[in-house]
């Protein structure tokens, strides 16, 4: 989902930066607040960031004959809520933009919005929903991480389509066009990301059960079915 340096027109690049910036600033404050309120969770927070760091370095071959990578933002979003991942995900993207020429500084806003904002919020929303509907922990974690991955790449397709609408079929046609580059490639990767996130949560439950309980990971949100 890394839009390469200089590939978004200046106006789009600036607009996405403006859109993503408040989320990242809010995320930075959320990290500070989290560490102050619960200093013992600092290591786990680092581990959530490290997970995203590892996964986004792994380019995995897919069935379409091209490679892509997981994002690893679902884990942190489930454990610490999405704002925290807005900062951690953006740090990962900045590292890759500056040192690996993967992504870019002009496209950092757009990439941060897809991977560090839309991805984590999708993960969190899906997780809460699955748990509220009575789904198990692993099912919730799997769907959250996998759908966060797909949502990230769908957002990238929309961003590219807005910048480069199709001559004949407009923005919608372009969404389909860019989506087709990513979608099928991304499905096995989303599954891999889901499985890896489930694995890490299983291991975490084994070694730091009290922390996960304190963070409310096992809490089942009350189902609020509105009676019409």
């Amino acid at each position, binding site marked *: *989902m*890394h*839009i*390469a*340096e*200089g*590939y978004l027109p*200046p106006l789009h690049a600036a607009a996405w930066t403006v859109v993503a910036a408040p989320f990242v600033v809010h995320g930075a404050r959320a990290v500070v607040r989290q560490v102050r309120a619960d200093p013992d969770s600092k*290591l*786990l927070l*680092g*581990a959530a*960031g*490290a*997970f*995203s*760091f*590892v*996964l*986004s*370095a792994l380019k*995995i*071959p*897919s*069935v*379409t*004959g*091209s*490679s*892509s990578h997981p994002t690893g933002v679902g884990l942190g979003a489930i454990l610490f809520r999405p704002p925290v991942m807005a900062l951690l995900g953006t740090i990962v993207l900045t*590292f890759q*933009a*500056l*040192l*690996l*020429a993967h992504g*870019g*500084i*002009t496209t950092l806003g757009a990439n941060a919005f897809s991977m560090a904002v839309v991805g984590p919020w999708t993960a969190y929303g899906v997780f809460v929903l699955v748990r509220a509907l009575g789904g198990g922990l692993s099912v919730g974690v799997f769907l959250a991480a996998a759908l966060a991955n797909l949502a990230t790449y769908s957002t*990238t397709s929309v961003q*590219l389509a807005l910048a*480069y609408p199709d001559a004949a079929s407009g923005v919608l046609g372009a969404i389909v*066009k*860019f989506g087709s*580059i*990513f979608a099928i*490639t*991304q499905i*096995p990767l989303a*599954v*891999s990301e889901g*499985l890896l996130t*489930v*694995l890490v949560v*299983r*291991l*975490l439950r*084994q*070694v*730091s059960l009290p922390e996960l309980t304190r963070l409310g990971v096992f809490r089942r949100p009350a189902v609020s079915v509105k009676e019409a």
Partner: protein
Amino acid sequence: MSRFSLVNWLLVLAVVVLAAVPLVFVDSETGFGGADGLAAERIEAENPGFAPWATPVFEPGSETASGLFALQAAVGAGFLGYFFGAARTRRRLTRHALGPDDPA
């Protein structure tokens, strides 16, 4: 092997299979080039005369890049390993303090 470890290893195996199957059975024209690059090529192909208006500040050669990707993964995995080691030890010590009879 406990059921816990078995499921964990099966999860690892599934991920390895998902990555290995395309490598073995799919004949890639691009040698499994990145999907990000495909999107960029598409833009160039459909917008003649397109040139990115910014270029990366620093662009490592492919050898250096592979090293930096490995470094990124190593830093992340290193920290995760440290975390799990620390958490495991802490759990063991707490258990020990709570009940000396506990075999763990």
